[in-house]
């Protein structure tokens, strides 16, 4: 449902004079979102408690549940600055680079659950996130990769996986970096969205149509044409044109001659033999796209799209939904805020960490997902935190942590701790491949429930009771109440309620002949229950 225009106007009125450009990002966010909530006459959910917040931050930033040590440290701390300290620590940790890279990989290759181009793209993205590269730099490297640089091999996979289909390449570039799906305009001017005409689709294609596969290497011609035929009328040659309508003079728009076709064949043969890409053209249309798309006046698409995507990643839905439908007929829920965040992000060199930190430090982010009355406020107000289903890797890594003896994590130096977590993440990767990647409107299938209920792998990988496992630890405990409390704390990061404690202890006592089995089933019940499956 769209917000009624009145909301937006009222929100604007409420803001005048209160939000200033030099406010910290999180303040800016809260002022805008708060004003819209207020003018909608809605009571927002209260702030989440500390245990919920540390779980949410850890899952969203580094892709796993927190250990009991991390939860306790956060909950018990009376440092007024503890949230900022936690956010800084998580953002600086290697887990942040891995988790955000995994999210970007899915964003860039949604069809393959993130794996279409092979593992190399993921490796590149992890490197880029570890090095703290800005988003415009990642964009440049993906669009203009230098394959002779071994560290850039993976970056080239984004384009290389799409070379067989220039129409798909055109659309995927527009979707990934500009939040614009122009595929509807491929066959006709968009029937509903006046922003997108065939000229836009083919204008974008003109930048990319010269890129080709030279025997497994990425190459580009110094000339080429994107042609299109409207439903009626003659065939037209499309000039290079960015989504804003900015056209480029293009002296090189022409067909290939027979001679050039022959020459290209030889070039392809040569690059196959030497495993080296043909030399780049003097005039690179693709480089012009990157240049023109980041220019003042055009860069709005790029900036707004990354802001919208990061907001979606942390808040569960975007200012604009779906993420690839950013156009005038689909206005954002908070136009002013989106504009302000886009402006700030561009002004700070597309620094992702600044944007992420701004979002997760806001009170908007840290609201409770619990809203006790019947009528939940419109999702687009962000008055209640959304539930976010785990990604496959969030689920498998979190299962590993819930299954581990929490004593393993205690007293470890930061580097050792990170190494252990990385090992656990690696160990869960195979299992993660069995889990569906969540999308908007995601629904869990019965296949997952059957896998957890009857899959041997779940038992073998997460429910064993050997050394270093929480089940190994509890089976040696004599106090059943303390044992089930430990299981609840490792899985949920909180103490059991009285009712839970009573029921779980009764379950274990009813199986006095097989306590190890009983605890295994308790852990199974904990990790298959909804409290484990969602970021809440």
């Amino acid at each position, binding site marked *: 449902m769209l917000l009624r225009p009145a909301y937006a106007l009222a929100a604007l009125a409420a803001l005048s004079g209160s939000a200033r450009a030099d406010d910290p990002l999180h303040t800016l966010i809260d002022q805008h979102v708060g004003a819209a909530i207020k003018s909608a006459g809605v009571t927002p959910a209260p702030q989440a408690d500390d245990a919920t917040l540390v779980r949410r931050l850890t899952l969203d930033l580094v892709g796993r549940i927190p250990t009991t040590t991390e939860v306790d440290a956060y909950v018990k701390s009376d440092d007024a600055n503890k949230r900022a300290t936690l956010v800084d620590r998580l953002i600086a940790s290697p887990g942040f680079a891995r988790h955000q890279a995994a999210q970007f990989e899915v964003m860039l290759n*949604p*069809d393959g659950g993130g794996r279409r181009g092979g593992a190399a793209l993921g490796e590149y993205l992890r490197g880029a996130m570890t090095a703290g590269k800005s988003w415009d730099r990642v964009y440049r490297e993906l669009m203009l990769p230098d394959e002779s640089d071994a560290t850039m091999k993976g970056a080239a996979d984004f384009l290389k996986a799409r070379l067989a289909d220039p129409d*798909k390449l055109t*659309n*995927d570039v527009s979707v990934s970096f500009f939040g614009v*799906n122009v*595929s509807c305009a491929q066959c006709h001017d968009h029937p509903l969205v006046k922003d997108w005409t065939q000229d836009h689709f083919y204008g974008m294609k003109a930048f990319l149509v010269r890129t080709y596969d030279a025997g497994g290497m990425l190459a580009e011609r110094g000339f080429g044409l994107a042609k299109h035929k409207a439903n009626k009328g003659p065939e037209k040659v499309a000039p290079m044109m960015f989504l804003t309508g900015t056209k480029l003079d293009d002296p090189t728009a022409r067909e290939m001659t027979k001679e050039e076709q022959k020459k290209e064949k030889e070039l392809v043969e040569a690059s196959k033999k030497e495993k080296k890409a043909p030399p780049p053209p003097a005039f690179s249309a693709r480089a012009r796209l990157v240049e023109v798309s980041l220019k003042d006046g055009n860069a709005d698409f790029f900036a707004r799209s990354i802001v919208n995507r990061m907001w979606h990643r942390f808040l569960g839905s975007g200012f604009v*939904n*779906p993420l*690839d*439908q950013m156009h005038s007929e*689909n206005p954002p829920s908070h136009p002013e805020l989106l504009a302000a965040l886009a402006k700030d992000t561009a002004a700070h060199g597309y620094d992702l960490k600044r944007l992420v930190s701004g979002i997760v430090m806001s009170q908007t982010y840290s609201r409770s*997902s*619990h*809203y*006790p009355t019947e009528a*939940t406020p419109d999702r687009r107000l962000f008055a209640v935190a*959304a*539930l976010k*289903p785990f990604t496959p890797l969030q689920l498998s890594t979190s299962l590993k942590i819930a299954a581990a003896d929490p004593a393993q994590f205690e007293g470890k130096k930061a580097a050792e701790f990170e190494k252990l977590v990385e090992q656990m993440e690696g160990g869960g990767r195979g299992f993660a491949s069995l889990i*569906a990647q*969540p999308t*908007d*409107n*995601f*629904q*869990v*299938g*019965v*296949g*997952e*429930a*059957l*896998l957890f*209920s*009857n*899959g041997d792998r779940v*038992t073998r990988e997460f429910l064993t009771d050997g050394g270093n496992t929480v089940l190994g630890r509890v089976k040696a405990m004599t106090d059943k109440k303390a044992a089930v409390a430990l299981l609840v704390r490792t899985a949920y990061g909180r103490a059991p*309620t009285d*009712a*839970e404690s009573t*029921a*779980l202890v*009764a*379950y274990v006592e*009813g*199986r006095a002949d097989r306590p190890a*089995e009983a605890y295994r*089933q*308790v852990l*199974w*019940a*904990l990790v*298959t*229950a*909804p*409290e484990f*499956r*969602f970021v*809440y």
Partner: protein
Amino acid sequence: MPSPFFCGSDAHRVSRRGFFGAAAAAGVAADMTGLNVLGSPALASELRRGQKRVILLWLAGGSSQLETFDPKPGAPTGGPFRAIQTDVPGLQISELMPKMATRMKDVCLIRGLNTRNGDHGSGAKLMMRGRRDEPSLRYPDLGAVVAREMGRADSQVPDYVTFYTQTEGRSFAPGDSGFLGARYAPMELTTNNTPEFIRRLDSITETDHRERAELRNMLGRDFVRGRTSDALGSHAEAYGRVRGIMGSERLFDVSQESQRTRDRYGPTQFGQQALIARRLVEAGVPFVRVARAWWDSHGQNFETHQEMVPELDHVMATLIDDLKERNLLNDVMVVTLAEFGRTPGINASLGRDHFASAWSMTMTGASAKGGAVWGRTDPRGQTVTHEEVNAANLFATIYAALGISPHKNYYVGSRPIPLVDPGAEPIEALVK
């Protein structure tokens, strides 16, 4: 063991359960694991009234229309087999299908398919969906759409089952729920006839398996209060269906059928899987695909078809008879379809190649009109001369014959997505 937190939850589940409430009222345990779904007349009649179901016989690799439903005897392209008269006046089919020749009164035959895609991979995608994927939108296939339209939220049986045991071409045509997502993803059987994860592991007892699920429900009870989300609802629903689906394991077991029935379907894998498909639709599974591979007869087309068509003839005829005898043919549609047909031209290896411009398919049952023939090809079978049908028209017709409006919209975000491409209409003459 008494479990106080469990009290009442079953009653809730039963009251939500629509017709399964009848089973509970009749004194059957609310937990469906042990329930004989087939044996309950109350359930069977409920199913009979409303829900349409589909069995798709997927002729993977592309069967030849000339050696099945559109023979051209005597033409240079006709091949060695004769045509025989059927029970529909004026309609002849290949002599390789004598059993179907006496049952064409029930069959709706389309001979005018021109689907313009002769590639195994993208052709199979097209013919499972009725349309091409967009660059950034993956459409659900026929199975997922039927599962979504005909499946019940709390169904005790799977929604979409697909058998594809041979390896040839399997990766070209996986079942795929596209943007409908994991909720409607198929249960895929490739290595044997029992689904994965449907059976309790030996390492846990029946009681523990059931009671740990109750423990799980108890743990989620507080959490879901005050939280609403479709994903959260689907999670509960998925686990809520586990015990029922485990109970449906027996549906996959042909030994539950009499020897006579099993013999009737024949000893082949295709026959046995068709029998399982019948058991599944009878118990309410909305969509079952049985793939038979590999029809891709680039060489030795006539030997291949001489071997495979009689099997198809037998299995299809048996399935139709069986459904009819069980009074199910008004609700269950049997479809034969492939990614494309085969060239009229015969190549140097006495094979026929990929051909998508004039081929055939059939629909039998539900509201597909029996005895109808749509589309005509020229004397050599090179082109469709009358009543051409593309993939979108075909799917519109299939949906219409199942009582599903082809113009119904699904929503991806706020974007309406009609079930078939805009402008495609069903062929009215083929729908009862």
